[in-house]
């Protein structure tokens, strides 16, 4: 296969960046998209040029590290598929492929296709956990959980934190990511004590990171490699609304967990 690539090149955070064009003629259909990028980088290195920096790690669709906008879509044309699980057979011989980093002001470009997603970690720090220490805990079967509820919580917990939802959203909103964590924990009995506080503080952190608001475009769901449902956004809105109706009590800083 022959392909023509247009790749975003940006040497550092402060660099303006530009698209550059490369041609590859030794691509085979069985290659994964990232193996095609490896091939490009080998070629560039041997030619004495700078290879394209991109994030990747597990290459089996679960670590959430890979992050490319391919022909305008986060993770490329195949639905429910991460960039690393995309194969060149999904492209035609002679195809022209545009590769860009996640585009969102809350995800500044670090270099080429690598972006800074630490805002997601800070949203989790704002309450995406059940306050807990390590040590003896009650037996799990002492708190039965309805299996459908556990499964729905797992549907939300399946989020890999890649950021495709933000890249896909015309507003650069992180609502799908935030709602997935709020829903996962908020549905389970263990997560009840901090449920409303969690919804409020995570949303507030999300806003302060510079993510946009949700306008129900639903592009996030369409481009999410794990197919996380926007129904969770509804859940978050409901919890957030309830949280806003009660008097704010911020005791988190004064209370010792367990």
């Amino acid at each position, binding site marked *: 296969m022959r392909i023509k690539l247009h790749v975003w090149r940006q040497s550092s955070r402060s660099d303006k960046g530009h698209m550059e064009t490369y041609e590859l003629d030794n691509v085979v259909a069985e290659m*994964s998209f990232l193996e095609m990028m490896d091939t490009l980088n080998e070629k560039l290195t041997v030619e004495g040029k700078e290879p394209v920096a991109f994030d990747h790690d597990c290459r089996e669709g*679960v*670590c959430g590290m890979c992050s490319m906008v391919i022909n305008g879509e986060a993770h490329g044309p195949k639905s429910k598929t991460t960039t690393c699980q995309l194969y060149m057979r999904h492209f035609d011989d002679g195809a022209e492929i545009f590769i860009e980093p996640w585009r969102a002001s809350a995800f500044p470009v670090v270099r080429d296709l690598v972006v800074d997603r630490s805002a997601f*970690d800070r949203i989790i*720090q704002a309450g995406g956990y059940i306050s807990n220490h390590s040590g003896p805990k009650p037996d799990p079967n002492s708190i039965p959980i309805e299996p459908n509820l556990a499964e729905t919580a797992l549907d939300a917990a399946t989020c890999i934190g890649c950021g495709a939802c933000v890249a896909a959203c015309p507003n650069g909103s992180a609502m799908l990511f935030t709602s997935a964590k709020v829903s996962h924990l908020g549905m*389970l009995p263990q997560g009840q004590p901090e449920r409303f506080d969690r919804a409020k503080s995570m949303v507030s952190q999300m806003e302060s990171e510079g993510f946009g608001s949700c306008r129900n475009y639903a592009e996030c769901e369409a481009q999410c490699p794990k197919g996380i449902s926007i129904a969770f956004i509804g859940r978050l809105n409901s919890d957030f609304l309830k949280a806003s109706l009660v008097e704010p009590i911020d005791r988190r800083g004064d209370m010792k*967990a367990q």
Partner: protein
Amino acid sequence: MLTLDSKTPVAPIEDAWTYHKNNNLRLVGPKNRTKYKVIVVGSGLAGASAAASMGAMGYNVECFCFQDSPRRAHSIAAQGGINASKNYRNDGDSTWRLFNDTQKGGDYRAREKNVYRLAELSTSIIDQAVSQGVPFAREYGGKLANRSFGGVLVERTFYCRGETGQQLLLGAYSALEEQIAAKKVKMHTRHEMLDLVVVDGRSRGIVVRNLETGEITSHAADAVVVATGGYGNVFYLSTNAKGCNVTANFRAYRKGAGFANPCFTQIHPTSIPASGDYQSKLTLMSESLRNDGRIWVPRDADEKRAPKNIPEEDRYYYLEERYPRFGNLVPRDVAARNAKDVCDQGLGVGPTGYGVYLDFGAAIQEKGIEAVKSKYANLFEMYQRITDDDPVETPMRIYPAVHYTMGGLWVDYNLMTNVPGLYAIGESNFADHGANRLGASSLMQCLADGYFIIPVTIGDFLSRQESGEITTDHPAFQETEAAVKDQINKLLAVKGTRTAQSFHRELGKIMWEHCGISRNKESLEEGLRKIPALREEFWRDLKLPGHPEELNQSLEHAGRVLDFLDFGELMCRDALLRDESCGCHFREEHQTPEGEAERNDEDYAFVSVFEYKGEGNEPELNKEPLSFEALPLAARNYKT
């Protein structure tokens, strides 16, 4: 000569851990904990759980990972589940049974009190994870569900669909983020540990590279915990994530920590084969497929027909023919060795000739398409996504792949290496799996180490030390920093013609050929000649683009390949000296007529621990003898 005091408590095995905690371990009081700084390198299940637990206790923790977030670590990819001897099924499970299965599965090459402790802590791990909100599968009544997993007679595996590792890691990650928010843990993402700083024989801190800016910095601490996982990527192709490497472990080894059993590598029989030279990693398919699939290759090496057009008589069902009693369900290692054997004979299938068919045709005929599909739907989908072949229409192609490494830094019962103040936990250490790890046991070990063992044992060491005696102003830090920078500059100065990737690939081929599924003396010796030659070429012909002070992924990779080159040699050495077959280490010279591993307990019931003796010198072998008091030695036998 290393001092290898295992510090195993002198108490009956059932009470050993409790006895140890009550009688041998000193504690650090809550008010004093903030004075002690602990560095955790790695943020997978072991690292994140350790950092979160110690942070919550009040220690001053700093955690480092090379990814952009601690949630990315490769623990996330574990699919199957996590063992715990809860005995919820009332099927006779117990701590003793889990201990027994783990020790037997490891072919008696682990320290038995460590293994017993692991089994003992298994149930607390499930409690801990559930309390964090890990959504384990539940039954209709809302109680936790279980499934059974390879080679055991009870149902003790807890799971979240096929993403148990992900959910457990997210649990540990959320606990870690809680401590980061509470300012108990300071997280350094996109930082890679490049060396350990040792002063007067004691671990005092690390030198890291900021992967975004290239800046080299020193970090001093009262204790350093290495939790950087396994080194399967020494084979280039493995089921490990691309970033997994041996550098932190290997640098610790070069600074005096003993490296134990480096040659113990687990190879999984059913992975999707490589499709070409550009292949970058391998993806595992669950072993359960062997329950319904028949494994075969064409009898004729020149076979050109599509698999479904090859008639029965021209198919070589080699496992069924060679092992009539067990057929396709022979143990992992036997299945893996035979696949390699037929492919080496030129009978392999697929574009590279390194693959065998796993055929569901017979099962579909017998049970119907729907029955087979319902059992394996997600696996079939995963296979089709990667290969574009539908396993219902045409047989799957599979091939063995490197999956897990049992070897690692030598640690005592407290998980401390022989370098005081340096700990190793999770896959980084050698401790609990012996020569072979049972399925669903790796997640268990990482979390036992991180949540329950290290938070207690580290206090014993710290309570005996003054805090913060040595800061980064100490000349040892400057020297180590200078050495790290020097190596980076040397790598960039080679200015040859070959990429780090191409050297890594070549090393992987050497390791696979000479130190892979089966090993023998001549081949290992040949490997030991090839690796130094490749290293020489690496230093002569490496081509690295870019600069040291920027995000430079080629530079990161080159440093890891360099350590893999040295480490590969150590693996071959270990495999050569272990003149027996045990667990995953199969020496062709030692096998039963049926091709089973033949252990030699008289001469090799020890942990081989290598001691670094300087550049260019042979490492020295130390031995920790293993004793088997609770569970007497028995032959590994999966036949009766």
